[in-house]
């Protein structure tokens, strides 16, 4: 049971075996500026869809947090939305009752998400497999239930509304066209990607990957797999909390579904579409998922479910590394052709 989230089959990812580490590092380095550039280009090219783009950016940050847990820590979870929802509600409650500066809201969300991840992670991360899946689901359900019952603070099933964030840095007001919202969300996403990349390349990140690969060996060389996982879970909780807060800032409303089981499952789907363990795979997957959703769900939400279901089955059967691995494989093929030429 050590290999919960390992790529099921080493053959599925030929590029990572054959490409020298330097080439992979190059690709990873390009990823973040590319996200920023494409994000800015989308700002000019799709001025009518800024609301959708904002949601994509905020969700991508959430999926990124799941990538930290699953792609780097190998923790299979269906309850990541617990941290997202906690962060969103914390930011919303802070904004409604005390202080509505957007950065303060993000900080509140991050602290709340990280706190709940630390507390629950310490409680549940000794488990594995189905038990762990159930525990993460149960944590999500409890968060949702608490949010549902604490009507005075959260608005219960009506959702928490009336969040009116102050201008960013006191300069840029959140306008009705969503321009500020989008640029703010994009900036936070890029910052999140940079921080996540830094963390994952630190000794701590390497140790977490070691735990994913072989927990026994990590404990043999004197590390404690569980404490690494709990720390990673908490770090990812901070990211998820910030993502939730970002949604609260940009949409001005927090609903019960932000902590629900379907949102966790959707995030997992997005991550796997994009590819785990790459950070930018989270961005690709989210953009692909929500973009297609936007187009297809306009006609009938059930068509959308059928499509995404077939897509998921196809990914698992034919492209286990996700879209990003497909791109890398394509890149590998092209490179090999160049070498031959």
């Amino acid at each position, binding site marked *: 049971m050590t290999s919960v989230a390992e790529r099921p089959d080493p053959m599925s990812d030929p590029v990572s075996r054959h490409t020298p580490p330097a080439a992979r590092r190059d690709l990873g380095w390009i990823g973040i500026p590319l996200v920023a550039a494409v994000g800015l280009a989308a700002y000019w090219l799709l001025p009518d869809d800024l609301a959708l783009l904002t949601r994509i950016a905020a969700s991508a940050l959430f999926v990124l947090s799941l990538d930290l847990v699953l792609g780097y820590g190998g923790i299979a979870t269906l309850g990541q939305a617990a941290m997202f929802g906690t962060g969103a509600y914390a930011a919303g409650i802070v904004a409604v009752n005390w202080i509505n500066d957007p950065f303060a809201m993000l900080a509140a969300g991050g602290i709340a998400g990280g706190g709940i991840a630390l507390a629950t992670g310490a409680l549940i991360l000794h488990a594995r497999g*189905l038990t762990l899946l159930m525990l993460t689901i149960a944590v999500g359900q409890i968060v949702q*239930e608490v949010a549902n*019952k604490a009507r005075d603070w959260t608005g219960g099933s009506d959702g928490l509304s009336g969040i009116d964030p102050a201008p960013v840095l006191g300069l840029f007001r959140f306008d009705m066209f969503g321009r500020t919202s989008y640029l703010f969300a994009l900036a936070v996403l890029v910052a999140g990607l940079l921080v996540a990349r830094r963390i994952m390349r630190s000794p701590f990140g390497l140790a977490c990957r070691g735990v994913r690969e072989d927990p026994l060996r990590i404990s043999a060389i004197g590390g404690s797999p569980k404490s690494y996982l709990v720390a990673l879970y908490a770090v990812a909780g901070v990211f998820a909390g910030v993502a939730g807060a970002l949604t609260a800032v940009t949409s001005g409303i927090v609903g019960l579904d932000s902590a629900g089981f379907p949102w966790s499952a959707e995030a997992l789907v997005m991550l796997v579409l994009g590819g785990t363990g790459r950070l930018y795979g989270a961005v690709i997957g989210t953009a692909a998922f929500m973009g297609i959703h936007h187009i297809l769900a306009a006609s009938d939400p059930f068509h959308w479910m059928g499509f995404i279901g077939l897509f*998921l089955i196809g*990914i698992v*059967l034919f492209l*286990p590394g996700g879209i990003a691995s497909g791109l890398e494989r394509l890149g590998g093929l092209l490179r090999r052709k160049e070498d031959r030429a």
Partner: protein
Amino acid sequence: METMFGIAVDGVAYGMILFIISVGLSVTLGLMRVVNLAHGAFAMVGGYVASYAAQTAGLSYGLALVVAVALTVLATLPLERLLYRRIYGSANELAQVLLTIGLTFVIVAGINYLFGPTLKRIPLPEMLTGTVELGPKAIPTHRAFVIAAGAATLLGLWWLLERTDFGIRLRAAVDDPAMAAALGIRTERLYLATFALGTGLAALGGVLGAELLPLEPYYAIRYIVLFLAVVAVGGAGSIFGSAAAALALGIVDTAGKYLIPNFGEFFFYAALILILFRWPHGFFKGRAA
């Protein structure tokens, strides 16, 4: 006292439905080590087929039940061959979760396409609509029928696994698949048969439980967490564990709804966390299968 009796009857009936559906999941998880999130979708398919057979085709309740179970098993057997066989084994957990979620989505979309998004009913025959006098108390016949069906399923499964050749092979394969195969047990056929058994039980539970877990396209997603909870608490592959866990969860959930309607769910999941924290392999995990 009246309330306590009501809770007991409703809770046990609800628990029996949970048991019938979840035990199939438990057996496939114990043998093939596959976390089948589409199990709820199979139960839903069974319910819809029965509803169609009874309402549109005009079959009797018993016949509709048989048709539903048979058709569901027939429809899902190719899935075992084409999809599930590739993801057996505990190393593939993420692939299992994704593939079965994808399958669930496809089934939900298909059911909605065929039957529409409205609630479907399976009309009960006269025989099951009244009440049964049980000493001084009267309980609804349908509840009594469900409880009896659950008990019969429990006994039947016990007999199948403990007293038949098939059961011996199955238990051998659960304990050590490689060794079982080496001894000449055809594990692939065994997997197919077990998968059919699990799906059939799911369909049976979906039909019998249509009064308690209403049939609508999101059924597959709404209740799968419950079924998984039963398996996690009962321990994968354990029949009596599943039964005890299903009854306990059914009674806790029903009692929560009767007595503390505002915090029912909360206590359900809090109890789940505490149980799994203390017994990560399931509260009732004894011997496998």
